[in-house]
Every structure is written in structure tokens, then in C-alpha cells.
């Protein structure tokens, strides 16, 4: 393995251990890793902003699409939002972005998330199928209608009295869904933890010296977790 890859693994491993340390106590190593993360994220965004402007704007512009000059100007105007006097200029490019966003989402939302979902619900069969399927389909339809009622019909009085049963069914349906979502969230997070631990155990620890450095890293972390006034040195971090 070349030196570049070795250094890369060491850095990635140390950052991984330092970030996990916050689960136990706040410490200076975590803060260092955290600030590295935020800085890197912002820097990465700039890099890809430049890349996109270059590839999707500058390239066509140099090939004769002169109208892109207007877009560049609008893009720069976005940053007037930081100016106390001329901040309103940024509303023009923002208006175009918002307009595009609304147009794109509204045109398809109607079909994909409203009509298609209603058609799919309405096409569920209650007769001509076995009893269990009919029962399941009935439950499905009742929950869909109840949940829509729960969120849309929120006028005073519509969730009380005899009608209170509808939001109650909706709540039960949603609780079942949230329970399922919760279990899946556990799965997701644990897959992520596994990914990092697997990296540490398969890529870092087999490297020469890593097994010896690991206890030192952990001791330093534990030391850094001791409140400043209780540790002999340094008194403040």
C-alpha cells in the first residue's frame, strides 16, 4: 500500500474515533473533528459549485450561448442578500428558482401524489377476492381516508363528538407506520455504524502500529473528557 493511502486511512480512522467519542463526553478532539467536518462540507460545496458553473454554464457560453451571461449575473446577484441596502436585488434570481421549483413540483404532484394515489386506493377490491385480502383492503382504505381526514379537515368540531373515531383510527394507523419507520431507522443507523467499525477493523487496525496507537488514542480521549478544572494539565482547553 502506498504512503498516501496509509495516511488517508490513519486520518479517516482518527476522525472516526474522535467523532464517536461525543457519545460518551464532549472533548477537544471531537470539537476538532466537528469543525473539520463543517469546513470540509462548505469547501466541498464551493468546489462543486465552481465545477457546475464551469461545466453547465461556462462551456456553453464559450460555445456561443451568450445568454448565459445573464444567468451568471443573476447568480452573482444572489449574494446581494448579505448587503444591508441592496439585499432586495437577490429576490430576482431567487424568484426564478422558486418559480421553477413550484412549476416542476406542482405539475407532477397532482398526478403522482394525488391522482395516482387515489386511483390506486380506489382500485382495491373488496369483493371477488378472498376474505383476508378483502379485510386487508378494507383496513387500507379506512386508514387512507381517516389520515386524509385527520390532516385536511381540521376545522373546529370535526375531530370531536361522534366523529372523534376518525382521527383516532388515523392516529392508530400512523402509529403503526411510525413503529415500522422507527425499526427501519434503527436498521439504517446500525448499518452506518457497522460500516465505520468495519472500516476501523478491516482497514485501519491491520496497519502496522495501529493496534499500539489505539489505546493511546483512547487514553487521550478519556483524559480530554475530564472537566478542565479536575485535570492536572492543561487547566483550560
Amino acid at each position, binding site marked *: 500500500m502506498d504512503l498516501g493511502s496509509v495516511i488517508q486511512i490513519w486520518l479517516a480512522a482518527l476522525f472516526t474515533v474522535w467523532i464517536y467519542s461525543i457519545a*460518551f463526553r464532549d472533548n477537544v478532539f471531537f470539537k476538532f473533528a466537528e469543525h473539520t467536518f463543517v469546513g470540509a462540507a462548505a469547501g466541498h460545496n464551493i468546489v462543486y459549485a465552481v465545477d457546475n458553473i464551469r461545466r453547465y454554464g461556462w462551456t456553453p457560453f464559450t460555445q456561443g450561448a451568450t445568454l448565459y451571461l445573464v444567468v451568471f449575473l443573476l447568480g452573482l446577484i444572489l449574494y446581494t442578500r448579505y448587503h444591508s441596502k441592496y439585499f432586495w436585488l437577490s429576490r430576482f434570481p431567487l424568484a426564478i428558482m422558486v418559480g421553477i*421549483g413550484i412549476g416542476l413540483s406542482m405539475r407532477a404532484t397532482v*398526478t403522482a401524489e394525488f391522482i*395516482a394515489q387515489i386511483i390506486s386506493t380506489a382500485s382495491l377490491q373488496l369483493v371477488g377476492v378472498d376474505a383476508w385480502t378483502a379485510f386487508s383492503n378494507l383496513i387500507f382504505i379506512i386508514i387512507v381516508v381517516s389520515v386524509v381526514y385527520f390532516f385536511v379537515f381540521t376545522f373546529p368540531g370535526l375531530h370531536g363528538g361522534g366523529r372523534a373515531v376518525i382521527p383516532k383510527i388515523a392516529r392508530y394507523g400512523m402509529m403503526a407506520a411510525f413503529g415500522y419507520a422507527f425499526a427501519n431507522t434503527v436498521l439504517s443507523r446500525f448499518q452506518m455504524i457497522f460500516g465505520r467499525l*468495519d472500516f476501523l477493523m478491516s482497514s485501519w487496525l491491520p496497519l502496522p502500529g495501529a493496534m499500539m496507537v489505539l489505546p493511546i488514542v483512547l487514553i487521550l480521549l478519556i483524559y480530554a473528557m475530564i472537566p478542565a478544572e479536575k485535570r492536572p494539565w492543561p487547566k483550560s482547553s
Partner: protein
Amino acid sequence: MREKRGFWSRLEDIPREVLYGLLLIAFIIPMIKPIGFPVPVSPETQKWYDTIDKLPAGSVIMIDFGYSGGGEPELGPMAVAVYHHIFKRGGLKAIAMSTSIEGPLLWDKAMAEVNPSQYGAQYGVDYIHIGYIAGTETAMAAVGKDLRATTSTDYKGNPLDQYPIMEGIKDASSFDLLIVFTTGGDQSEGWVRQWVTPYKTPYLCSVLAMMKPTMLPYQKAGQIIALTSGAQAGEMEYLVKVPARGIKSADVMTLTHLLIVVYVIVGNIAYYGKKYSGG
């Protein structure tokens, strides 16, 4: 003076370090000593596999490499397994783009893992990456309407015209299948709105397990052919016969999930024990 706390109260307030420590042990033990639990293949993973397997030769696939580094441990193995399948199956053209800003670099990482040359696949002939395109749904709509008007270069900045794979590729209608790996709801749902609805492109979607519930209605309505989570990578690896990180995680997931069930049960016992014993 320190108040004396009962057993149930102490059980309910176990320090978090103990909970985390036990969890870490449940993670590490099967990693050091693999147990080799089997991986069950679910119908949806099988359906995903069959969809790619049954594509006619010469079919063109659009792949959105739309996950972030945070989701890589889960979606990375899935994406790698699917690429293995595409190359193993052969005769397919895989054109990737990214709606996630980390996509191109993660694609490089995945390709290094897949090693397409072992299947005789060549960059620009069998597969390509056209880059990260900002704007999420705007990017999807733009590429769907006219790919060449949106970008004329691949992710390295080389002209698309020089690659044989791009011959005849104009817009969404040039694609026979859409595969999305994403950590963002905007992306997974956006593709339904911008490609599936207007162009009727068949859609295979792989998201983080925690996002799966929100995508289920689309699947039920037939807008998604098969919906999987990255956590099902082991199943895909088993079908493609390329065991890797997904299968390796099966032991760990079993032990850690059982531990969580134990936590829920013990937590509730402690709660009710404290309630009925007065502390």
C-alpha cells in the same frame, strides 16, 4: 443527603455508557468471530434482480448515484452489488449522474470496488458518469427534457460526443430503466415526479431503510417496480454471487437488533416495576 433509589429506578436509569458499551460489544463480537447467519432474499430484491436480468440486450439504464457519504455504509454495498449485476449480465449501457454533491467521488469509490474491467466493461462504452448536476428536481427535469442541452461533458469534463455509449442518447425517452440510490427524499420522490410520471420510465429505487416507509405508497401505486433499502445489500450480493459488506453485516444486524429488543423489554419492565413498587 443522597436519596436511596430502588432497584427499578436504578435499572431505568442505567448510565448511557453501559448501554453504548453493550451495543459496541454486540457490534464487535460477530465482526471478530463471524457466526455466518443466513441472508433471506425478500420478494422485492428478487423482483429488482429479475427486472435487470430480463432487460433486452442494448438497454440503456440511467443510474442516479444520489447518496451522500453519510449513507455510503448502507447504500454503497447495494450500489456495488447492482453494478456487479449489470456488468455480469452484460449487453447493458449504464449511464450514471448524481443529484448528490458527493455522488461523483462516491461513484469512483464504488467503481474501484466493482472493478468493471474484470467483466470486460469499458468506460465510455458500457458505463459512464455525466457528473453531479445541481438543482435536484430541476436537474432531473432538465436531463429528462434534453440531456445534451444540460451537459455536454462527462464528470471529468471530457466531451460526451467522444463516447460510444452516448450515441443516440437525447432525453428521458432514450432510457429503458431508471435506477436510483439515494439518501434524500427529494431525490427518490423527485424521480417519480420528473421521470416516472411524464415519461413512464420503469423505476427501481434503493433508499436508506429509514426512508422506505415514505416510498411505499409509490410502490403500491405501481410507480416503482421494486423498492429496496441499502440494508438489503446482502440479499443482492447473494443473488449476484459477489459476497461483500452486505452479507458480512448480517451477523451484526442480528445481534444488535436482538439487543435493541431486549433494551425495549427491559426498559418497559423497569418502568412498570418502578410504577407499581413505588421506586
